[in-house]
């Protein structure tokens, strides 16, 4: 049976995060963007909400809530509504924690997850992206070579959220000659391991509060049991699907924020004798923004529901991500356009939102899923 209804828990999670996003994230978005930094008191507050540990199994010290990508999508949409950049920083640890819950071995969960269940904030992250133009995970250049029983990692990762603060990283690397994504594995790497160099990634266009870093891996040794999953390591395609869904959900939230900010302005701003919202050129623009934003959300939910039902969400997640990438930028762009010159000044949020959206929609590993 088809249903768009949310469970009571999902509604509660969404409402909690929406209120956090509007009161804590949105209010700090501009100053964090200019400072290119997330304030640590905000990161502490975000941690105290307890969402990182929510789905960590009880035997690891977590909340034991079942993992659901639909719930994740709701959470990320709510956070994206406040500030996608700050959200990426505040919840970066989920990029490490959730893949461990989903794909990690029993032993890995017990070893690594308890440290994320305490009251003290722990930063960890995911290293997926690389510097190549139009980076495609299937053509990943970072290599994991067999070395005795363990592995040796070599390569350069880019745009790792909160990379400088992370104590642990989940690093994706090509581990075999199997074609495309089949040969990619994820490795648990200590950020202070020999051969790891982490530096701030300079001058990102948007999401500057996410604290993006460049991670150099020079002959980094990883023990055999730190390849994510049992034995030879888990297929990472479900992880990529969840990242696509998460990133798209964040973009939906951001798009919604753009629309909700533009509508009251269009109703107030008078040009040529009447509010611009009464001009069809503006009214139709807003209507299209609303239509596309709704379509985007249902595409994301559909992909998340596929995964939650235990089906392969690869295709649905690509469809959702592609649709969102195409339309979300347009929404952010039209949002700025409605504000005209005022939208172009680094004062009101529209120009920041357009920059954030541009990066968010060319990047699928920012959001935890």
């Amino acid at each position, binding site marked *: 049976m088809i249903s768009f209804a949310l469970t009571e828990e999902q509604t509660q999670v969404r409402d909690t995060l929406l209120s956090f996003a509007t009161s804590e994230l949105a209010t700090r978005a501009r100053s964090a963007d200019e400072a290119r930094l997330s304030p640590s008191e905000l990161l502490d507050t975000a941690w105290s909400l307890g969402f990182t540990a929510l789905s960590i199994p009880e035997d690891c010290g977590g909340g034991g809530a079942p993992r659901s990508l639909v719930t994740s999508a709701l959470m990320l949409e709510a956070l994206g509504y406040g500030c996608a950049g700050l959200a990426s920083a505040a919840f970066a640890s989920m990029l490490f924690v959730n893949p461990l819950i989903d794909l990690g071995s029993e032993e890995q969960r017990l070893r690594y997850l308890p440290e994320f269940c305490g009251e003290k904030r722990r930063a960890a992250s995911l290293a997926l992206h690389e510097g190549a*133009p*139009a980076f495609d995970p299937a053509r990943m250049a970072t290599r994991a070579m067999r070395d005795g029983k363990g592995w040796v990692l070599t390569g350069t990762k880019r*745009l790792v959220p909160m990379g400088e603060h992370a104590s642990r990283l989940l690093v994706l690397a090509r581990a075999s000659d199997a074609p495309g994504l089949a040969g990619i594995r994820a490795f648990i790497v200590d950020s202070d391991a020999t051969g790891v160099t982490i530096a701030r990634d300079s001058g990102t*266009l948007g999401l500057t509060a996410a604290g*993006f870093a460049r991670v150099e891996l020079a002959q980094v040794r990883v023990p055999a049991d730190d390849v994510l999953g049992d034995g030879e390591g888990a297929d990472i395609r479900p992880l990529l699907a969840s990242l696509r869904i998460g990133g798209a959900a964040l973009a939906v939230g951001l798009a919604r924020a753009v629309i909700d900010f533009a509508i009251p302005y269009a109703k107030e701003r008078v040009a040529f004798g009447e509010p611009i919202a009464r001009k069809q050129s503006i009214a139709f623009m807003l209507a299209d923004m609303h239509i596309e934003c709704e379509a985007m959300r249902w595409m994301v939910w559909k992909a998340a529901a596929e995964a939650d039902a235990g089906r392969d969400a690869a295709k649905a997640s690509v469809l959702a991500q592609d649709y969102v990438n195409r339309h979300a930028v347009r929404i952010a762009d039209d949002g700025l*356009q409605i504000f005209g*010159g*005022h939208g*172009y000044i680094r004062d009101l949020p529209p120009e920041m939102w357009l920059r954030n959206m541009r990066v968010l929609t060319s990047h699928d590993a920012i959001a935890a899923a």
Partner: protein
Amino acid sequence: MSGFSAALRAHIERAREWGRNEVRPAGLEADRNAAPLPADHPYFAKFVDFRRRHPSPAEDDTISEGSAVRMAVLNEENAYWDRGMGVAAPGPGLPAAIVAALGTPEQRERFLGPFRGAKEPRWGSFALTEPGGGSDTAAFRTRAIRTDRGYVLRGSKCFIGNAARADWVLIQANLDPEKGRAGQRAFFVEHGNPGMTGIKIEKKMGLRAYESVSFILEDCEVPHENLLGGEQPARTSQSSAYGATMGSLNTTRVGVAASAVGLARSAYDETLDIAKQSGSIKSARVRDRLEAMRRRLRAAWLMTLRAAWKADEKIPNIVDASMAKVFAAETAHELATVGMEIVGLEAGAGDCLVEKLFRDAKALNIVEGTGQIQRIIIARNLVGLPR
């Protein structure tokens, strides 16, 4: 239809060399600093020297093309290297033509004279836009009140190019609100006038190379002789400041369109280079998108040139100018957007020209009338769309 004259091509070549060696690095410096280059930056002195050695094509009698085509061609080339630096260029700027056309002989000498053969960089500025009215030029609220000593200006202006460093700002204000637009006049406010207060240089998403200034006119007093055209201007519709403004936009829109084409060409070249280097040019999808971009760029340029050519031929070009403006601005924006997609995250990670062009391009569909306003103008002429 034919190619450009040899004389004009020589100017393009010179602008290209200057652009590559001087304009591009200066523009990148301003963008990295997220602030306009200071007025005493060596670039501006070099620019003045360059202009002294190589007069503007506007003054070159050997060029057979008309002034609008000249401007379009040079704007395109200059914007290829950096649109923001073009606006930041020293000189009387946008109001020069208005002052030349409507100023009294004394005003032309007093306000334009110092720019002739100037050895130091100096700027003029034109203040039209207000916080409550961007594209709606008729809704401006700044008032001018006649007093015994001259005029008192009250109101506020925003996004005014080079206004903080300019020797004078020509300010649009309404002297007779009952007459509506016809009451609009223009007043020279000289640098340092204490009535021009709250001067704020805005931080922008892109085009950071020039000052966009907001300020308040708080009982700003100017003498009688600072009213453009004097107390009793010739009684033609063109002589009101409003008429002059709207008349001038027929060529300034073409100028912005040409700049947008230059910016778009820059985004195209940069994207193509990166696609070649990375090998992504081998993908049919990437080649298709680049091809579509190139076609759109060509169409935008032809549309711009036609609007310029019509202006030179004195054929009404309101629709053509608006079409070129909106088409070229949206082309620049689309090319930079597609460029970002082809280049991918490398562009988002900074230090990539495409990323800067993406931020710069967005402004072009807003300045000199948003894309929405241009469509209204076009539709009004096509189907009699009411205001």
